């Protein structure tokens, strides 16, 4: 219970966005919503700004919800272990996304919003086993983002079974595609952070997120999709260890040198 009270207090104190972060967040929402609504600026091949703006507004709602869930998950996980998470927009990633949208006329969504930066909350890290920053913890905190997106997609998929709505379908698709893009090892996305943090964890998360995304898009039971994705993740993780990791990882002193006993 003490940890829960502590976490609630930390969320109250450190959750809020800084002005620069907020600016980046708003730009990201506008750009990503434009990318996903690119094909909806009119009926058929005729351009209609009224329809386009309406669809863009709908997309803004979808993107805002997904990004809030995404960044909230990372912030809460970060705060739970004594780090403040700051969202950093990736300008070139967004420009690449816009470029792809224009070149492919909105068929290909390239969603590269940005990454996170950690701030060490010195007082709140007291008592933790490893006091400072590390690649591993950075990767784990970042991975909360795509995992939360898959959970969001799964929840809305269940809702969509009862209340079918194009906006909900779009939200599911967007959250899944963003999760898949985010787990690719492209700096500064989550995948790169986790990859350099721990290859073993990366192999599991990567091989769970990708099948989960694909299975959630298919018309099968949500729980079955999630369980199957986790099983695929475990199998791939094991195979990765057997065929690669255990041959190449020889410990911190691979050539036999090290502290004398």
């Amino acid at each position, binding site marked *: *219970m003490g940890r*829960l*009270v502590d976490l609630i207090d930390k969320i109250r104190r450190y959750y809020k966005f800084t002005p620069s972060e907020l600016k980046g967040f708003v730009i990201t929402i506008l750009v990503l919503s434009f990318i996903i609504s690119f094909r909806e600026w009119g009926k058929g091949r005729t351009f209609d700004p009224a329809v386009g703006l309406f669809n863009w507004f709908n997309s803004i709602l979808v993107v805002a919800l997904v990004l809030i869930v995404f960044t909230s998950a990372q912030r809460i996980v970060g705060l739970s*272990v004594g780090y403040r998470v700051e969202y950093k927009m990736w300008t070139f990633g967004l420009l690449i996304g816009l470029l792809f949208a224009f070149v492919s006329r909105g068929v290909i969504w390239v969603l590269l919003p940005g990454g996170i930066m950690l701030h060490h909350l010195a007082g709140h890290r007291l008592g*933790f*086993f*490893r006091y400072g920053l*590390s690649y*591993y*913890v950075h990767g*784990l905190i970042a991975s909360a983002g795509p995992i939360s997106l898959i959970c969001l997609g799964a929840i809305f998929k*269940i809702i969509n079974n009862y209340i079918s709505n194009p906006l909900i379908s779009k939200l599911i698709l967007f959250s899944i595609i963003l999760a898949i893009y985010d787990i690719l090892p492209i700096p500064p996305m989550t995948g790169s952070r986790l990859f350099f943090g721990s290859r073993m964890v990366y192999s599991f998360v990567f091989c769970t997120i990708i099948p989960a995304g694909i299975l959630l898009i298919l018309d099968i*039971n*949500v*729980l*079955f999709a999630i*369980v199957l994705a986790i099983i695929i993740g475990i199998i791939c993780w094991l195979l990765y260890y057997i065929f690669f990791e255990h041959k190449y990882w020889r410990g911190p002193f691979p050539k036999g040198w090290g502290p004398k006993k």
Partner: protein
Amino acid sequence: MTITFFKNWAEIIAFVLLIIGFLFSLGAPSAFLSYIIIFAAGMMAGRLFYERKNKMIFPYFLMVLGFLIGYLIGTRYGNWLVISVLFIIGTIISYQLHEKNIIKDIRY
């Protein structure tokens, strides 16, 4: 009578878990999947009990029980006895794996 979260956190979380368990079991399309999910939930409970070893454990026991009851209420496919047994087996296996250091935790 007002219910404050900080006084009744164990009961409130147990109730929330009961609803989550209920929804999970409702969503399971077959008995096999119900069994897999409850076994995995048992593994998580075992880890939780190991974490609370030599500390106050009753509130956590209550929460885990809440989840199990919710799951049993919502079960459409599968036998409730098998589900309970699988949950307990999962808990014991996970606890023992942690106890024997086969499953280790990397603290960060």
